[in-house]
């Protein structure tokens, strides 16, 4: 029997709490293992990380720079702060930017009460938006037999793109355009219903807002269940 490989253990401090972690773990993973909450939006357990939403930015002592906890890995002796006035201010501003970017009307949204953006807004103490609302005119694609895409509610977290490419393997979703004109699309920007969609519905389950929803849930609560991802991953590894 060969000896168990030596595990490289790092000790660090997060919000004043001394914690230990395996080398290569991200700050986010370690924080959550230790019940320290860091807000996230584009991150989802079971998908690759892109570091796009910038809500999980944390401070590391010794540098003025901020680091996205979802991709920054732990280092020995690191002193991490996950919540400070500066971080809270940035998080609120980022959420304001999201609310003002498209047309988020919580009161009439299918995801009202089950929306990660809405919840984050409340958690971060957002009671109003200081920025002018952009109110762009955007498409709603209802061509799919089971699901709807409402661009008005999309925050471009790209979870749908990643789950379709990485887990389902179909890669019918991607992002077109760039900057403020970026848009998630199916195939050659064709109606979703005419695309090569496998109808698995994973994208709907991982969508944090009401941008992707199940048509049968209109008018009734529409919680999403993205927890299936880590379980799916585990089952695959076991086989």
């Amino acid at each position, binding site marked *: 029997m060969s000896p168990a490989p030596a595990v490289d253990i790092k000790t660090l401090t997060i919000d004043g709490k001394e914690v230990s972690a395996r080398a290569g773990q991200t700050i986010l993973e370690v924080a959550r293992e230790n019940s320290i909450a860091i807000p996230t939006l584009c991150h989802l357990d079971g998908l690759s990380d892109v570091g796009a939403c910038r809500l999980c930015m944390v401070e590391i002592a010794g540098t003025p720079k901020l680091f996205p906890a979802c991709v920054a890995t732990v280092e020995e002796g690191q002193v991490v702060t996950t919540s400070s006035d500066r971080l809270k201010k940035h998080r609120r501003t980022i959420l304001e930017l999201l609310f003002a970017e498209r047309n988020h009307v919580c009161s009439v949204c299918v995801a009202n009460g089950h929306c990660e953006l809405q919840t984050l807004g409340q958690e971060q103490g957002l009671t109003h938006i200081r920025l002018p609302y952009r109110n762009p005119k955007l498409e709603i694609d209802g061509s799919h037999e089971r699901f709807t895409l409402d661009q008005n509610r999309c925050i471009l977290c790209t979870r749908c793109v990643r789950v379709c490419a990485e887990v389902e393997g179909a*890669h*019918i*979703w*991607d992002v*077109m355009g*760039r900057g403020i004109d970026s848009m998630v*699309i199916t*195939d*050659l920007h064709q109606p979703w219903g005419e695309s090569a969609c496998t109808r698995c519905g994973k994208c709907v389950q991982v969508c944090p807002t009401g941008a992707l929803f199940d048509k049968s849930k209109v008018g009734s609560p529409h919680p999403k269940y993205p927890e299936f991802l880590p379980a799916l991953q585990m089952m695959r590894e076991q086989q």
Partner: protein
Amino acid sequence: MISLAPPPLPSDDKRWKIVNGTMRRHGFARHALIETLHTAQSSFGYLDDVAIKFIAKSLRVPLSQAYGVVTFYHHFSLKPPGKHTLTICTGTACYIKGTDKLLADSEKHLGIAQGKTTPDGEISLMTARCVGACGRAPVVLVDGELVGQLTSEQVIAQLERWEVA
């Protein structure tokens, strides 16, 4: 393992062979996508769904990914260009030298916004982010040929010459 046969050329237009040639030179590797799009764009003047689909399928790139690439880069165009193209440089040096007026006057004269082609398909009005000839600002490209130190009147005169022809 399932192997998908490469798609046939969309038509017997010889230009597809040139496009195919670029892909072959790169061993039909996925990373040849942008190089191949360049070839197709310069062969056909623009990229339509047929071209994107053909290239994506040949290189085994998902359709949505190929479309994402095409629309990310401003050099690629989804619509055919006009018979003539006026490209106005909107780089910083040109802006300081008043290129915004050249652009506004051209838009007004042609009745179209930048990036568009006149309804008769004659003239496309484009902008470029610096062609690197800042020493000659303000600069425009008249059917691709660089002309520097231009006034609004000269630009309108050029448009009128095209319109008459």
